[in-house]
């Protein structure tokens, strides 16, 4: 039986403001517990939240970059529940009217574009952290994170595979780092996501019952968690059982999801408008000012790459989607004067390595200057394309510079025509049968001779020169 998967993502993006959403305390990561907490974060009696406009601005930037509606008026609400790391007993969030609505973002799977619609993006404060393993039989509470601004980005349920989910998460990651509204540091929890998964038969018009997978913070885990959850649901349905609407936790150690709470047991959060805060009012002038100060967005970059560098639209889009990749491209294009070559290498070899390891460019050992150097060395024919692949793989593993790898491995391309002729002569005299066959009209054998020469030269011979010499010798 075949099943269709429907996935929606809720991504929590920690906005990189200096201070918290409603207090002047610092948001820096990694300080001693409870040292970045002021009266507001502690939920002391009588203190009041004061909103941080910087967070509003960052949310607006996200809205602009995703073609969203920026609501000229939006509201904060309270979400009420008890937990020790939630000092006020409620979280200030936006339930009824978020700051950003109705946007879209493009994702690429197998270099094909798909548009995913964004339902909404709203501002809210983060909770603190409960520490369960530090004190025997007791739970510690660290409120350093309490009140850190989050932008929760909710997608429409339009994602239909784990690959697309990962691509969407990556696209959001790339965009928010592009805009510099989030540091994108996944291991520090700067981006986390909840995944809603359901399956249905192709002929069904309504979506199946969904499960929500909570708090996933890596690309790899999204992929694995979804695969696992889809299999679980298929097994249940094929046994004739029902899916229960519930929240499930993905355990990355055991690679399984398990139930946290069912819908019936779900909290009633008693949302209501936050009476301590005025509505967020944003006028067009503010939006225009933010627009004017935004970094160049992928869309504008794409047109520039097509116009200035003569790239294909598809290639331009792939490069421009990532801030890191476009920086890498622009640097290499400028320094090597060969944008086409730089683009080809990014889209081909670099992308393949990224996909193989499921990492982001920023997480890899390939640095901008090193990539530039690689393209320069290919362009000035110090190394051949084939050697360059080996060099790139080395960089990928060690992060060493291009020139040091070329030197230590002795990979400089042989362009010395005497040396090349010598090798060619050897290959021709070692293979008299093939020479005879070639001369008798078996043109295809030319490739064989080139291959032999490259083998002899350990790939270092300049292919162009080899072609010329061989043609002469064999004619």
């Amino acid at each position: 039986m075949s099943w269709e998967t429907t996935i929606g993502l809720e991504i929590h993006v920690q906005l990189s403001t200096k201070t918290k959403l409603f207090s002047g305390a610092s948001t820096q990561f990694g300080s001693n517990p409870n040292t970045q907490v002021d009266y507001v974060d502690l939920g002391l009696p009588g203190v009041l939240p004061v909103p941080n406009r910087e967070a509003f601005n960052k949310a607006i930037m996200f809205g602009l970059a995703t073609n969203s509606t920026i609501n000229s008026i939006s509201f904060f609400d309270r979400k009420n529940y008890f937990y020790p790391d939630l000092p006020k007993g409620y979280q200030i969030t936006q339930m009824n009217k978020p700051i950003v609505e109705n946007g879209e973002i493009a994702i690429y799977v197998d270099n094909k574009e798909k548009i995913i619609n964004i339902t909404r993006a709203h501002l809210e404060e983060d909770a603190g952290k409960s520490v369960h393993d530090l004190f025997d039989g007791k739970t510690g509470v660290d409120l350093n994170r309490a009140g850190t601004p989050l932008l929760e980005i909710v997608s429409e349920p339009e994602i239909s595979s784990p690959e697309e989910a990962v691509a969407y998460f990556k696209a959001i990651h790339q965009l928010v780092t592009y805009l510099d509204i989030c540091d994108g540091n996944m291991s520090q929890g700067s981006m986390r996501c909840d995944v809603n998964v359901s399956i249905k038969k192709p002929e069904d018009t309504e979506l199946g019952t969904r499960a929500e997978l909570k708090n996933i913070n890596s690309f790899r885990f999204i992929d694995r968690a979804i695969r696992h959850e889809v299999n679980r649901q298929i097994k249940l349905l094929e046994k004739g059982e029902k899916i229960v609407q519930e929240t499930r936790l993905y355990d990355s150690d055991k690679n399984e999801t398990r139930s946290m709470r069912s819908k019936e047991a779900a909290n009633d959060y008693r949302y209501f408008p936050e009476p301590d805060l005025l509505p967020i009012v944003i006028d067009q002038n503010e939006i225009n000012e933010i627009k004017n100060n935004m970094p160049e967005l992928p869309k504008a970059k794409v047109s520039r790459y097509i116009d200035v560098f003569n790239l294909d639209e598809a290639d331009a889009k792939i490069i421009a989607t990532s801030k890191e990749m476009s920086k890498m491209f622009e640097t290499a294009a400028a320094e090597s004067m060969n944008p086409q070559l730089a683009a080809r290498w990014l889209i081909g070899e670099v992308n393949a390595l990224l996909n193989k390891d499921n990492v982001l460019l920023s997480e890899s050992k390939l640095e901008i200057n090193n990539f530039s150097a690689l393209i320069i060395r290919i362009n000035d024919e110090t190394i051949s394309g084939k050697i360059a692949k080996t060099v790139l793989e080395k960089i990928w593993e060690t992060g060493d510079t291009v020139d040091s790898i070329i030197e230590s491995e002795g990979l400089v391309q042989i362009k010395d025509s005497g040396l090349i002729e010598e090798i060619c002569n050897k290959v021709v005299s070692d293979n008299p049968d093939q020479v005879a066959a070639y001369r008798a009209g078996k043109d295809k054998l030319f490739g064989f001779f080139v291959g032999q020469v490259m083998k002899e030269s350990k790939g270092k011979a300049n292919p162009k020169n080899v072609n010329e010499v061989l043609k002469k010798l064999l004619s």
Partner: protein
Amino acid sequence: MTIQYKSIKELNEMLNNKDISPTELLDETFQLIDEHKDLNAFVTLNKEGSYKAAKELDSKDAFSSLEGIPIAQKDLFCTKDILTTCGSKMLSNFVPPYTATAIENLEKAGCLSVGKTNMDEFAMGSSNETSFYGNVLNPWNKDFVPGGSSGGSAAAVAAGIVAAASGTDTGGSIRQPASLCGISGLKPTYGRISRWGMIAFASSLDQAGPMARTVEDCALLLNEMCSYDKKDTTSLNVEIPDFTHNLNNEIKNKKIGIVKEFDLSKLDQNVVKNFESSLDQLKKLGAEIVEVSIPNISLSVPTYYVIAPAECSSNLSRYDGVKYGFRTDNITDLENLYINSRTEGFGEEVKRRILIGTYVLSAGFYDAYYKKAQQVRRLIKNDFDNAFKEVDVIVSPTTRGPAFAAGSKSGDPIQMYLEDLFTIPANLAGLPAMSIPSGFENNMPLGLQIIGNHLDESTVLQVGHNFQVNTDFHNQNPSKGVS
């Protein structure tokens, strides 16, 4: 020489005449506090802090209006390094590291904060019987309640211990005790005074204000309490006038509204008579009495008892035994840390309102209760806006009757809630309103409420002051009895 029953203005004259120094004023104040211990008006005294501030003023030649004036602060305002209980066991050990903006403003103006006054727990009550620290007694008759929730502040002023006190008013908590204790009390426009450092009951309704022996003193206090405060985004960034400026201007030709929909026939007839004589007094001063319609005013009490508990249920969630305040000894897991701390830490009335609030906000009831109440609130506000197109102020009795005996209503929440029948509408509409002494029934004070238009405290104070300089109800005191 006694300072008992002196107004701020009189004390200021004494200070400027060198009849008394700030330190001597404090000596007498603390003696009065001691003599009136049975009123139970104070929870905590601030001798050290107030004497320190007084000593710095002792050598002054001239005293500005509030410099060196002893004042009592409602125990709902956070005061740095001074126990702040909000009338609750829950905060019986809470010492804030900061001072509320309203109090800071008064202290900057030279007021000496002598102590924290008793109050209904978390300001929920109209009789001061819900305080964890015991009932406050009405100085006019100690068997009677002083009103609430600012009952300690009202009793301290009525007993002449201090010339003034701070209060807060969510549904009448300044005006109702002012009325029951025969003093003047003003709830300003919502947003006039910063709420920062005021322990929240219902955020969209809470407003601080002055309580004093005279309208003029209220104006002096209001001048200092108001400020635009960046720490409270709901505080208003508007010009603050000198509220004493037009106190003495005549009220001839002022249009004074009476609300058609207030059905006085069901009231205590002494209250009605008293109200009619107040109207006569205003007419004598040249004001014109005009009937206005506030069609939705009868919905005020039910509307209030949805919105206020809803906000309170959320505002009081922070008292959970985890971070500060009372924590139960009876803990086996997280859930009963919460349950037992809150069960043992809160009193019955607070629990009742948390339950009401939790109910009206819960899924499935939100639209029927909370949302509807917000819509009605908007209608009431619109009604007032329309009425104020025709009149300068609106007057009514402050309460349905004079102070009642302790225990007589505490078993009947509905009767208690109706205490605020006349005061709640101004909170819902965010309007300034004050209560001033208007006479007596069986030797117990009655009050006249004056409601003003948005930000128009000046006219409210002007009408009140004109009334006061032509009457002497405010000059009576419990020691000499009603003359």
